Structures are given as structure tokens and as C-alpha cells.
């Protein structure tokens, strides 16, 4: 809702279904894509391999994921813990500026040190990746699961269920989400910050995907093969899992990839505003917030977490674009 790449519900990138699903007057059919190809996954893989941007983004994403997963290992390799001060690396008489060029990059500190404390930037970036990606990915998981379930329920059962769920989606989307997230983060004090942040971000993200899935379900519901299954005596559970779920999987996957950047950005925004993780935990948003004051005196300190954030968001966006083109061609026929 603000200057951060907006929360997922308003982010065009994250919403392949930009047809006016919000508008009760429009035909839901326009919001839905055609059926996916018969042997979709091989096709997808072939298509993906064709694109250079996909390879690059997959490498970047892979790199950061490995970095996040192996954070303790990597920082052990660097020989520094993310919380340990190193007073020999900063000059107290200069307000704690790192000693040496490029923010104190040296054999001891591969990416330099944090001014004032002398904490190792490499260790902090790596641990920050862990926190940032953990929050973004778990929040995405919450959003996708909740959104898909509500979307299918609303689309398939229709009637009152649909009416109630659709109102709920409208209501959730009417909340000024960033403002509420900040409020909730600052109110809750004695809870696990990472867990709370995941939950809070997830809370406001689900209606977007629910709408996509609802539209898709509506269009699939009356396809011949679904009707055939119904006539053949399949129960709703079987139809949902066998026929509908695979049908919505394509757009959901594309959508998922595209909302991840929004999630990462939201985590960064909350940490930037000082309602995110608690010290001494690092996250990319926290690091950027702390480094802004040093952007001219110690540019490396500012550039490093910013670059990490940029690369990750870029990689997920490129990958998502490609996936959308392939899996949900109508949403992004471009």
C-alpha cells in the first residue's frame, strides 16, 4: 500500500488475473484460462529450458536458497558469527567507521563489517537471507494454501458458500494491509517475531490467489470431463482432487512465483520500519534500515543488502514471468 513494492493484492506482477474479477458485472469466464495442455509438465520443462532468463534466475534463486539453508555452515567457514562484535575492525574516534577500504573488506571479513559494531557483514547477510527467505516463503505457502482452498470452495460449491467467501475476500482486500501489518507487529511484543511476521503477511495475501482459483474453478466445473466424472458417480472430493485441482495447478504455480517478490519486499518493509525482527537477528530489511544512515560514509554496507534484495526479487519476477507465459498463457499472452 505504500512505497514498497505493494502488498501482493495490489501488485500487478503478482496478479495474472487482472481482468476485472473485482467487478460483479463481468463474466467470470473472462478471468479464466483455457484448459492446460494434455501433457503439461514435459512441455513446461522444455519451454523453461529454452529461456536464458529462466536459467539465470534459477541459478540466482538456487544460490540464495543454498546460502540461506547453509547459513550457519557458511558463516562458520568465514570464521565469524553474525552477532560477534569486532572492535579491531572499526575506528571509535571516527564514529565507528570500518577500518580499511570498501567498508573494511579483508581476508577476515569477506564483505566488510558493520560500522560501529564491527559485526561481520558476510555472516549477517547469509543469516539475513535465512530469515528473509524463510519468512517470504512460508508466508507464500500460507497464502497459496489458504487462497487455493477458499478459491476452490467458492468456485465449486457456489451459492451461499461463494457469496460468503467472496465477501470475505472483498473485506480483506479493503483493509489497508501494510498499515495493519505494522500495527499488528508493533502490538504483539512477546512472541516469536519470525512466526508472527509470517502469519501477519500471510493474513492479507490470500484473497488475490483465491480469486484466480475461483475463476479457474468456475470455468472447469462445467467442462465435459468434469460433468462426465460427475455422471459417472464420482463424489465431490474425488472430482476436486482428480479434476479441479490439477486444472488450477498451472496458474497457481505461476502466481505463486510472482507473489514471492512481494512477500520478500513486505518483510523488508516491516523490518525497515523497525517492527520486524529483534536485535541481534539480522534480515535484509533490517540491514538496509540500519545501513541507510551510512549510505554515503560507508556505501558498501548499504549496497550489499540492497543488492541481495534486488537480485532475489528480480530472479523471482523473471521466473514467474516465464512460468506465467507457459502455464497460464492467457494471463500473460504477451
Amino acid at each position, binding site marked *: 500500500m505504500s512505497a514498497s513494492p505493494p502488498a501482493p493484492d495490489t501488485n500487478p506482477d503478482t496478479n495474472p488475473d487482472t481482468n476485472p474479477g473485482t467487478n460483479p458485472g463481468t463474466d467470470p469466464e473472462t478471468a479464466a484460462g483455457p484448459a492446460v495442455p494434455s501433457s503439461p509438465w514435459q512441455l513446461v520443462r522444455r519451454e523453461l529450458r529454452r529461456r536464458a532468463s529462466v536459467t539465470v534466475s534459477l541459478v540466482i534463486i538456487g544460490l540464495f536458497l543454498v546460502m540461506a539453508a547453509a547459513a550457519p555452515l557458511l558463516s562458520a567457514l568465514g570464521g565469524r558469527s553474525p552477532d560477534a562484535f569486532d*572492535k579491531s575492525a572499526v575506528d571509535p574516534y571516527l*564514529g565507528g567507521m570500518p577500518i580499511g577500504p570498501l567498508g573494511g573488506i579483508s581476508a577476515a571479513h569477506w564483505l566488510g563489517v558493520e560500522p560501529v559494531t564491527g559485526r561481520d557483514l558476510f555472516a549477517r547477510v547469509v543469516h539475513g537471507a535465512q530469515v528473509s527467505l524463510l519468512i517470504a516463503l512460508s508466508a507464500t505457502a500460507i497464502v497459496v494454501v489458504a487462497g487455493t482452498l477458499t478459491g476452490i470452495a467458492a468456485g465449486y460449491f457456489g451459492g451461499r458458500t461463494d457469496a460468503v467467501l467472496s465477501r470475505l475476500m472483498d473485506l480483506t482486500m479493503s483493509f489497508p494491509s501494510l498499515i495493519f501489518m505494522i500495527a499488528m507487529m508493533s502490538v504483539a511484543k512477546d512472541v516469536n517475531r519470525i512466526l508472527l511476521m509470517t502469519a501477519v503477511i500471510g493474513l492479507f495475501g490470500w484473497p488475490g490467489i483465491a480469486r484466480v482459483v475461483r475463476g479457474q474453478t468456475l470455468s472447469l466445473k462445467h467442462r465435459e470431463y468434469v460433468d462426465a466424472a460427475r455422471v459417472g458417480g464420482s463424489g465431490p472430493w474425488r472430482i476436486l482432487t482428480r479434476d479441479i485441482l490439477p486444472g488450477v495447478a498451472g496458474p497457481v504455480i505461476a502466481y505463486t512465483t510472482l507473489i514471492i517478490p512481494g512477500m520478500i519486499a513486505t518483510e523488508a518493509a516491516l523490518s525497515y520500519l523497525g517492527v520486524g525482527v529483534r536485535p541481534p537477528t539480522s534480515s535484509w530489511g533490517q540491514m538496509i534500515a540500519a545501513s541507510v544512515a551510512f549510505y554515503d560514509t560507508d556505501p558498501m554496507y548499504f549496497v550489499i543488502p540492497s543488492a541481495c534484495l534486488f537480485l532475489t526479487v528480480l530472479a523471482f519476477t523473471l521466473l514467474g514471468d516465464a512460468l506465467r507465459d507457459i502455464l497460464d498463457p492467457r494471463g500473460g499472452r504477451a
Partner: protein
Amino acid sequence: MNKRTSTAFAVSLATALALGAAGCSGTNSADGRGRNPALAHQGAAIGGTPKRGGTLTVLSNQDFDHLDPARNWVMNTMDFGTRLLYRTLVTYQAAPGTKGGRLVPDLATDLGTSSNGAKTWTFHLKKGVRYEDGTPVTAQDIKYNVERSFSPDLPGGSDYAARYLAGADGYKGPADGKHLDSIKTPDDRTLVFELRKPFAEFPNATVMPTFAPVPQKRDTGPRYDNRPFSSGPYKIASYERGTRLVLVRNPHWDPRTDAVRKAYPDRLVVVMGLKPNQIDDRMIADQGADASAVPWYALRPESAAKVLSNAEARRRLLAESMNCTDMVQMDTGRAPFDNVTVRQAVQYALDKDAILTASGGPAFNDPSTAYMPAALFGGRQPDTLKIPATGAPAKARRLLKEAGKPDGFATEITVSSGDKGRAEAIQESLAKVGIKVTINTVDPSAFYATIGDTKNRTPLVYTGWCPDYASGSTFLPFVFDGRYIKEKGNTGNHSLFRDRPTMRRMDEIAAMTDARRANEAWQRLDGEILAKAPAVPVLVRRWPLVVGGNIAGAYGQTSYGGQLDYATVGLKDPSKSQS
């Protein structure tokens, strides 16, 4: 820090014997590299004598807490309010260095006369002092404002009136028509205060904005905060909360009645809500209209490097000592800090050097080895424990083992949000000996309410205390006397330290008649308490300000924690300021 300076350090009953430069002069600077570059203007004014006219701009990141004189009890806001908008019975002399602590009459003709063994105090008002509408200031108006300070609708102000006036128990302000009998106004220009106990330093209390005049017919209750009625050299032209305050001359202020305020600029504009680091950058760059600007708040520690490495900016730098000791106070009433050995372990584990760096480095802070600031030791704090400034973790671990906690323990600390960097340094040095600290940051506005709640507060708090004047009696009893502990709204004694021998000794010293002997006794007691380790003294801050190049008459007022003295600041060349 913000209000923390503010509220805790607000109690500024400094007497003639001001602390200021006396204690923490350049020779005592911590750096050991010789002269501290930040102290070039110690005890002196920058820019010579100002010329009359022009607009002085104040760049601020925040709004004032309360400009209502009944509610204004924050050091730098008291400076602003009493120097510009309202006059008090007595005030501080407008002068750099130690002279800034001298009391001079303001609305009153003298510093007050006492009778009845210092239980009755009489003040006479000067003639010809007028409000912004031309009506005269009367004794009844001062009485009315003192009464207002009792109103539950107008919280936040100093409680000296409540503490000392006779018959004040249960009084709830003048809103429902009740008045205090212990303040008498025999005529329009005479005030008589009846106190419940002798108080020889009562004139020191009358510098508080509580003793400024508010005419009853102008009182708008809580909303008076947004438009105080002026008796000083300026009046409010417009005040948009959190955005902008514009002051213009009060044409009815008569400089012949006022020996303190110079009122050089024609206008003052306070621009609020700016980004703190952008204020620092603008003040250092000193371009265009910013040359006629001053910062409201002290330089951020992050900006220290930019100023210290810039000779031109250093020429415009003030860094008066705040004369308040920052301490880590431990809840001595609860485990594990009820064990003196555990507390000593903390004393040895703390890396004051790292906290100092987080605070802007040795140029803007002096490390503290005793509770009372240097001024109360005649200029230099003793170092009785001889703990290295970087801490002694090995000894701390030994002490923890001795206390039966070889693996340390987990605890929590509450700090004001501006102290987060300092808290991280505390966290890290305690982690080295196995004490795992969780940091609770609290907004400055809620900080004192949070740590004053003795039942629900965290075991550790980081806060400071300022002596009211150069006597141990205004420091040690406030911080370490267990009889002053309150369940809610507790102040000073955040260690909840209830040590019988200490309290007995305090009573003995208070009864001493020889001031010199008493002073030495306080100094000895400081060391005795330090050995029992209810709190760890950490550092004494300075109040660094970089003023614009067109600013003149600027110095840090020692009685207001080093804040710029708004009585005398002005412009070198008024034509260069933006109108």
C-alpha cells in the same frame, strides 16, 4: 534517546554551583590522544554577538512533548518554552559554561525571601511585564498555573509543587473551582508559598515552567498545549502539530524588564518531522537557507564520522556535557540479580568501550567509573574497581561460576528506542559470558511508564540520572534509597535497591552540617554502593550540535543538558535568512 534525556534528566534544579564544563572538561576526555576535537567550543559561544532580525530555523525530527507550562518537564523543551514563550519567577543566567547554572530573577524582583525556617517563601513581581495582548502579568496567574499542574487532565509536568506545597494532598487542580490555600496573593504582585517542610533550595524549583503565568480566562485545558499564551519575547503565530511551529515577536514584551532574553531573531520557525540523518547532513553541508538553521536534537552517532573528519563542520560544533550518568540497573529484588556475585559478574562483563562506540565514540561521550558524574567528585571520577573499559569476561565467568551459574542465564533489558545501538553492545558483551539478553525497545514516550511499573518490568533497564545541583544529596538518595520505591511510576531507583546500611548512611550524611565533610562522605558512599553493584555506571553523554554558518551567540546551556540556549541565539547576517 529523546524524551529519556528529557524526562529523567529533566530534574534540573541546578544551583549556582553548576556542573557543566567543570567536570568533564577536555583534559578529562577519554580518548587519551590528547585534546578531544569535539570540545573546541567548551564553555564558549560560537559566532560572536548576533544582529537583530531575520528568521531562525530550527530543524527537528519530532514535535514538542508539551509546550503548556504546567506540563513541560523535558529539558530541551523547558529551554525552548521558558526562553521564548513564557517567563518564570526565577531562571538561569544566559551564559556559556558554568555561569549558565546561576540563578537570576525573571518575573520576580529577586530570588525570593524565606522566613519561618525556609518554610515560607515570598516573591514580588516586576512592574511592566505584559502578555501578548498587553494585559499585565499578575501573581494570581502564576498561582493559577501552579494549581493547573495538579490537574489529572494536564499530566506530564514537574511535581515539585505537589511535593513541597502545604495542603496539596488530594488536590485536583482548579478546574472544579477549588484553589490552594498554601499559595497566597496578598496583592497583584506578591506571591507567598507555604511549604510543608523546610526547603532552602526552593528558588531552584521556581525555574520550572510550572511557575510561569497562565491567565485563567485563556486556559483551554488540554488544548492549551497547542496555543500557550505568551508572556515572553515571542508568541505563537501558527502551530501545526508534528509539522511546523512559527513564532513571531510579542510586541508587548519589554526588554527593560528582562535581563536574560536577548530575542535577536524576528521570527523562529521550527520545522518538524524531518528525517534525523537528513538534518545532520543538512547542518554539515550548511548550504543556502540552512546556514541560518540550528538542529533541535543532538547529532546522531551515525553522523559522528562526517563531522569529526570535517574541519569546517567542526568549527560549528558544540558538545556540552549532559552531566547525567547512564547506567545498567539490575532488579536487586529478584533472582538472579538478588545475588551480589551475579551483579558483580555483570559489572565485569560489560564492555563499556563498545557501548561508547555505539554512542558516537569517545568524542561525544565520557566513560563512567562511578555513579555520580565527575562534577560531584570535584572534576574527576575515581576508579575504585579498576575494571578495564573493555570488560573482564574471564573474571565475570569466574564470578558466575561462584554464584552457581556457570552456564549463565537468560534475561531481558528495556531500553528507549533511541538506545537500541547501546543495548546491542550490552547484549553482545553479556553474551560472551553466557548471559543471554533479550532487548525490549520502548518508545521514549512510554519508556518511563514501562520501567516504572516495578511488577512487570524487565530485570535490566538502561537509563540515566542527573544530579539537580552539585551535591551528592541530589544523586545517591534518588537512585539508591529503597524508601522512595513506588510500585507504579517508580523513578531513579530502578535497581529496586533496599540496602539498610546504605540507607542508614544516607540519613547520617544528610544530617551533617559541614558541607565539605558531607561531600566527601557522599563520594565515599558512591564507592561503597558500587562495590554492592546494584547498577553499572556506563557513560556520560555530550549533546553534540552542529549549527549553521550564519548562526551567532550559540552555546550549549549547561542547565538544560547542553541544549542550545534559545535566549541568546541569533543570526550573524539576518538578511541571509529565508523569510
